[in-house]
């Protein structure tokens, strides 16, 4: 039994380590200041080169916007579910919708985003369409983990506060949210990681652009890192592969960094 467990772990870890190793080695080979700060040149049909600053700036904008939309909604939703809903019909409906969103393939959500935001709302390929589509995919993680983290806070804390004349909202603000914070932060983090690694929904809604984000959220396609990874790794040229390696490296490092920062913050929060 133990042998089997170890074997399975090795089976999973070896390829994973191999992939990470590959991206780190290749990433370090191709990383350079100009590669990070110049835009992509060419479309890949005959030649692609230059840097990935268009994808970095686009990803930052898309993620910032998506997170700004997801976190407040997910938090409010999770707080409602855990502290106010009493498992009523509305909360059941809310959970159902969230579960459906989480269970859907991102391709389907991307298509929906395309039909709703790009076509029906007429925003075209744009940062807003991309970010909203991403936030549909990210929402369930914040929503669910917030609810679960709040439900884990023991009820006798709520009772103790209530007996001191604390209102429900005061108790939530001053006590409950605080103790749920590590869990909530983990959920936010998870959702950001999910958002960062999505490709398909953005293909449908943000398209891609060789230019840096120019400040317009509508009618302007934006670049993003996973596009380069996904599309350029399939092109025959070395220069395209190098851009893909570089983008993977940037993605992996940022997810790693976000995780480390979050760990530190969570630990800070968990301390009394």
């Amino acid at each position, binding site marked *: 039994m133990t042998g089997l467990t170890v074997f399975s772990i090795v089976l999973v870890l070896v390829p994973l380590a191999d992939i990470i190793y590959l991206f780190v080695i290749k990433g370090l080979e191709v990383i350079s200041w100009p590669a990070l700060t110049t835009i992509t040149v060419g479309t890949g049909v005959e030649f692609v080169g230059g840097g990935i600053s268009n994808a970095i700036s686009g990803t930052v904008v898309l993620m910032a916007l998506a997170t700004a939309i997801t976190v407040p909604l997910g938090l409010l939703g999770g707080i409602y579910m855990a502290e106010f809903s009493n498992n009523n019909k509305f909360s059941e409906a809310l959970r159902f919708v969230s579960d459906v969103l989480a269970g859907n393939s991102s391709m389907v959500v991307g298509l929906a985003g395309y039909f709703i935001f790009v076509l029906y709302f007429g925003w075209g390929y744009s940062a807003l369409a991309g970010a909203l589509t991403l936030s549909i995919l990210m929402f369930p993680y914040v929503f669910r983990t917030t609810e679960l983290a709040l439900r884990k806070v023991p009820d*006798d804390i709520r009772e103790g*506060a209530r*007996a001191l004349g604390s209102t429900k909202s005061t108790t939530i603000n001053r006590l409950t949210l605080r103790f749920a914070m590590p869990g909530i932060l983990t959920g936010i983090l998870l959702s950001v990681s999910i958002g960062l690694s999505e490709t398909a929904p953005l293909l449908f809604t943000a398209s891609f652009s060789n230019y840096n984000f120019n400040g317009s959220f509508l009618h302007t396609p934006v670049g993003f890192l996973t596009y380069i990874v996904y599309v350029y790794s399939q092109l025959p040229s070395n220069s395209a592969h190098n851009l893909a390696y570089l983008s993977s490296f940037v993605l992996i490092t940022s997810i790693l960094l976000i995780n480390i920062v979050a760990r530190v913050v969570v630990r800070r929060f968990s301390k*009394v």
Partner: protein
Amino acid sequence: MMKPEPEPVHRVASGQGTREREILDHERSKGLTGDEGGLIRLQSLCAYYGEQKVLDEISLSIARNRVTVFMGPSGCGKTTLLRTINRMNDGVRKFRVTGQVLINGTDVYSSEVDPILLRTRVGMVFQKPNPFPISIYDNVAFGPRIHKLTKTKSELDQVVRESLEKAALWEEVGTRLNKSALELSGGQQQRLCIARALAVKPEVILMDEPASALDPGSAFKVEELMVELKENYTVVLVTHNMQQAARVGNEVAFLYRGELVEFGPAEEVFQNPKNALTEKYIRGTL
């Protein structure tokens, strides 16, 4: 809400109405039943969880600066009765109260009473110590902070210190107020919860088996504390520990299946119980 009845109707578990009347007369003679004597008066108080009636026409008067004990076997309605006084059961599904809980003559269930304010006047200590997982200081300061009872940091420091002193905890924790409350022992945690309740300056302190989850030594300290607290507060204690009831109680009420079987001075209830049920309970043969 039911209209208050002009004269509370008393019933006794065994149907001995006259005995109940005697107890009542006894109270009257001590001036405990008038508005002036009793700080808290329960009048024909009934409580229900859905169809289940768990308190049945409870009428009695709780005197100021005394320790009034409610004892009775598990499930007889002690906790419910206590939580009815500070309206902690508001919002419990299908919970419903009829009759009156008068504090200083005001029915706490009347529309002009704000349950939030009520709970600052009627503090509560729970069976299981439930300190917040924050510092000792922040635990005690929680109430004063949310109710903005103090203006300056030094005022707040003062309230925290006084509350911890009154709860006989200052000597043990005065030098480590910033430590987590969870690092304290069970008994210390319970006294911290008492200090936390005192910090909002209540008149009444409701205690629901506050010592039952503690080791004997800690339980004894909490008992001592109850006796000290009655100098400045009105203490209502729920316990199923008869020895404890006898040690700390001034008045003792015996509840059985939601009915008030007997109520009177502790010595009388224990040495000369009027009701056969009480006697059985005290002998441990119920």
